[in-house]
């Protein structure tokens, strides 16, 4: 073989090798719990981090650009940012540096965020494939897969069960190790939001506006609450369930007996979930308004008009509120009075909720740009990576 051909073959091989980097979990990570393992961060989907040291600035710490656009929510797992991409890959990025770490192939378009528990990763794929998969993150092998038609949002793990809902109106629990189906709760109504858990019951809202309380042990219905309109999202907080419907009405429901404690019309349609803290609830609306309500009475505390469509859920970090718009603007407001602090213009619409590890906030755009915001110290230089 002459040297020219050898050179070309070598370069080709190098290119092939560097094209893809399959990801496996470091063994040392296995026993660490995830910072943000679930959709909205925790089992109750509160969308807030209270014990945080986020400094209230939107300095760009790093940016990551990928052709694999995020199609589901971000997950934070022990310093790793994970998201399902449009090219049928689940990607891993270092949350510290924005460096690309690798991918696993979900064999289908991932429709839910990735949930990682111990060394196992769970995600569901979109119709056509419609499977819930459990992947051993140590070797990327599929441990088991189960049919789940049109899974919604994200799964939750309670007492060794992985529980998720499907659009056809089913709430299903599987054994998280074996994949055995443990129970199914069936409704005639359709589900389009993920379930949540308040430490006592699993809560699932239907499109038609019914809130179901179900036992985690065997999937039996405890009670149901009928609301007026199709529901956008729900969260659990301090023995209450907060629900916002698509017309912008927010309900506070007693988790013990299903009684509606208050309801408030916020005056605009909303598609994302509420974020909640001790004193206030924050809701983003399609009209571009961010509305803050008091937790106790549901009174409107303040409004901020971002003008452009807010479709993704808002996030509370420390004393701040962050949210993105479909026009690609990322805002930072004061939680106490809704006053404007800072805005960043990003490339691409923001359709998925931002996540935070307490110190930094991470947000993805539909153009495949993932950005880490926070207070950049002198040692940190903004990094920009592409993949």
């Amino acid at each position, binding site marked *: 073989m002459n040297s020219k051909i050898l050179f070309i073959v070598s370069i080709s091989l190098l290119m092939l090798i560097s094209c893809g980097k399959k990801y496996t979990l470091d063994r040392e990570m296995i026993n660490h719990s995830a910072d943000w393992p679930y959709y909205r961060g925790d089992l109750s989907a509160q969308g807030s981090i209270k014990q945080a040291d986020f400094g209230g600035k939107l300095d760009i710490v790093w940016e990551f650009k990928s052709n694999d656009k995020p199609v589901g929510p971000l997950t934070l797992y022990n310093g790793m940012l994970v998201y399902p991409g449009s090219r049928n890959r689940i990607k891993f990025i270092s949350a510290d540096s924005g460096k690309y770490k690798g991918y696993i192939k979900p064999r289908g378009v991932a429709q839910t965020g990735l949930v990682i528990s111990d060394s196992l990763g769970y995600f569901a794929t979109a*119709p056509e494939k419609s499977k819930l998969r459990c992947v051993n993150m140590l070797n990327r092998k599929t441990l088991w897969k189960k049919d789940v038609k049109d899974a919604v949002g994200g799964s939750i793990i309670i007492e060794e069960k992985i529980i998720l809902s499907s659009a056809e109106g089913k709430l299903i629990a599987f054994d998280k190790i074996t994949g055995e189906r443990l129970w199914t709760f069936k409704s005639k109504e359709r589900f389009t939001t993920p379930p949540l858990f308040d430490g006592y019951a699993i809560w699932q809202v239907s499109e038609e506006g019914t809130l179901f309380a179900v036992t985690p042990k065997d999937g039996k219905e405890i009670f149901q609450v009928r609301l007026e309109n*199709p529901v956008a999202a729900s969260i659990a907080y301090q023995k209450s369930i907060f629900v916002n419907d698509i017309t912008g009405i927010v309900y506070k429901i007693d988790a013990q007996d299903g009684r509606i404690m208050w309801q408030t019309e916020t005056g605009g349609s909303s598609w994302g979930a509420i974020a909640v803290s001790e004193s206030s609830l924050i809701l983003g609306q*399609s009209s571009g308004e961010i509305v803050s309500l008091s937790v106790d009475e549901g009174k409107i505390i303040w409004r901020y008009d971002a003008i*452009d*469509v807010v479709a993704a859920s808002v996030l509370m970090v420390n004393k701040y509120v962050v949210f993105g718009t479909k026009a690609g603007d990322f805002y930072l407001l004061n939680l106490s009075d809704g006053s404007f602090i800072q805005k960043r213009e990003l490339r691409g*619409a923001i359709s998925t909720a931002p996540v935070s590890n307490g110190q930094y906030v991470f947000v993805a755009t539909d153009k495949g740009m993932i950005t880490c915001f926070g207070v950049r110290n002198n040692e940190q230089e903004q990094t920009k990576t592409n993949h």
Partner: protein
Amino acid sequence: MQNHKREMKINKSYISFIVIFLITVLFVVSETHSQIYFGKNKVQYTDFDWQVLETEHLKVYFYAAESEIASIAAQSAEDSYRVLAVKFNHEVPKKIPLIIYSSPSYFSQTNVIGGMLPESVGGFTEFMKGRVVVPFHGSYRDFDHVIRHELVHVFTISKLKHVNSRRSQLKYRFPPLWFTEGLAEFWSKDWDTEADMITKDMILNNMFFPIERLYVIRGSFYMYKLGESICHFIDSTYGSDKLTKLFDNWHKGDNFNEVITATLGDNLSQLSRKWEYALKKKYYPELDSLGLPDMETEKVSHDGYNVKGVPIRYDDGKGESDWIVYKANRFGYAGIYMRPMHSSKKVKTLIKGGGSSEFESLHLLRSGIDVHDNQLMIFSSKSKENDVLYIYDIKKEKIVKRFEMDSLIAVRSPRFSHDGTKVVFSGVRKNGYTDLYLLNLEDSSYASLMDDYYYDIDPVFTPNDSSIIFSSDRGVNGENGVINLYSFNLLSSKIKQRTFGDYRDMNPDATEDGIYFSSNRGGTFNLFLLDKESKIGQLSTFATGAFDPRITEDGKTLLYSGYQKMRFHIYSMELPEKPKQVDHSQIVTLGNWKPKQISSEMKTKSKKYDTDYSLDIAQSTMNGSFGAAQVAFSEVLGNKAYFLFLANTARTKDDILESFNVGVTFLQREKRMNWGLGLFHFYDEYFNEFDKFYFEREAGVVSLFRYPFSKFHRVDFTTQVKYSIREITFGTKIREKTLASNSLSWVFDNSLWEMAGPIEGRRYNFTVGITTSLSDKSHWNKMALVDLRHYFRIGRNSSFANRLFAFSSSGQEPLRRYFGGTWSFRGYERREFYTRNIIFSSTELRFPLLSILHIGFPFGGIGFRGIQGALFFDAGSAWDDDYDKLLGSFGVGIRLPVWNIVLLRFDFSRKTDFESIDNNTEFEFFFGRNF
């Protein structure tokens, strides 16, 4: 006769590159590709002074004369943008180009799309560049509705693109037309009386189209309304979030049915059944208290679509009797007809619209007509750019007067004064505003009665000619579409409101009894009488709709346009003795609103328009055995465009540089004279039956000028100077010349088309051309061509078509044409003749064979609609030097339209030399329209 039958494989013909090059030019100038050397003309009567106004989300293109309308459009579009951003949960990433015209007449001159725009088009969104083009018709409610309707399309395209891009989906599916148009209607206005009328009529008259059969009415107004009804049903039954979620779920299905199923839980079939059931439950009970026009009154008209009936007394030689004069679309174009009111005698055609520049369009629904006691009829028609008023003498059966209004672009619904000296009409100024005008018939002078931005229509004189009664949106809630009746005192010029409430009171007819009018009081358009005591009595209780009331001379019979069974017809009814009184509270609210204009804070920029080019198309094509690239750029208004063509025909790598085939064309269509200029260099091996194989290199410049006299006729002038060298084999020259060619064509086309081809009208093309050799200053060739086609309609779907074609060329290197085959001389092989002299005639009887043919297969089926038959006889001769003999052929053909896109042609023919008939039956199959 010489027979140059081809023996070898087809190579590129002599003019292949030139054709590609010129067709590109002509394609965008002419109406359609199949009509390149015929075709109607889009005439740029006005040279617009374009400006651009930029807002947060829009770039509004307008001309100086309509700056107020543009400002209103910008505000309306910005308001709509905000509403739709919420409904779609989406932001359009780029500023939306919105092009505004102040009238439908100016709108019809737009070059944003190439084809002719039918008068019924209220606006459109061009999908390639997302341009929205909207004319102002006079009504702010309709303007707002159309702008929002088109923006729904922009959001739909953008949202689907966004969802697909986010999922990296390569397969780009688009929702069915009924859904996109239905959604655009649903999200652009409330459910209104017109939508209710269309849907209810279909249900009550068993003419309903479930979702799986909506393809039958694809693209029609009926489809829009049923689509709107489906979206309304989804929203109210499945939830108001579902239409938004449907787009977010786009990736969840391979087709629309799967996306619907994933979103609603029901598939399209289940959705359709539930929707139909809900409509039946809603509308059937209405028949308890309401009736249908053809069951309760006498139907006077019968064929087609009939409106605006006027009762007259007429003596047809057998004594005076009741007749009606009315507008109708009976055969695919609007006309004015008259017929006896109570007998089925033959209909008399007074005016035939759509076939000449005098009567380009009679505005079937938008403008009424009137007949005075002296048997003079007045009507408006589009004539070239503007509307004109015509007076037609019914006795003399001819136009006796024509009035042109230089300051008005449109003229609608003229009415005579009772003394016959004046005419009142609704006129549209060039800035788009609609006011009432008074025309003095004696000196042809005209003057406006008011000068404001309200929409003033349907004027009529009171019996003593002292006042005008008219409809207007000048009252409270006028900006939301409320129309009431008003009177204008001709002495004091004072305007007084006559009817009140949030209704649409239209088509008034003032009589001694009071004012008859049509109104949607009660939820359906019915007929009412406003008496002298200002009380309103209801005259009809139809479930569908009644419009245009006109009272007969004896005051006993009411003529009206009734809607039923998806058609308008003229009906007559006896006046009820005691009309039921309806509530009529009077709240005088004149002129208390103004259309909202964009504020200066919302304008980000406003400037004179400079050209803004962007890519139209970039594609690689096969050009013979070589690949070729085609690129087209045009500016946002479509007036100027560049076309680039690049190919290489090199056979060895040493030939690459000299084998580039390049064509660059510039087109200018901004003004009435369209012109194009191109440069080209072509080199390739060619073949024709006369010269056989040869190489030719051509380089030169070509220009095209087109001047349309009207929509129907024009002249084309083409000139070309080229250097041409021909070689038999490499290096063996057979000639080297610099040639200058000029050709001049006069083209006329007023043909009316149906799916299979022209069915009525005429098409002419006279062309002469001459080529001179500049190298030796000698005459090179000359050419003359005549192509005459006549289509005589003998029934609704039948016609008798004739074609006469002659071609002759002479000179040192005469031009030759291929002839023969299904598109020219049937029975003979395609390209059987290649000669410089041709004479040919074709006669064809076209008639309907089967209205529907459905062929079933185990896996499904295929259906054809409107299958036509043809009997034809062709005769002709083609020769080079000496005339040989006349040949002929005759036979039958079948024409099968497939999805209204492709026409399959099957011809069976036998040849004849007029002494004997060939025993063999030739069969030919091809795609394409009739000649």
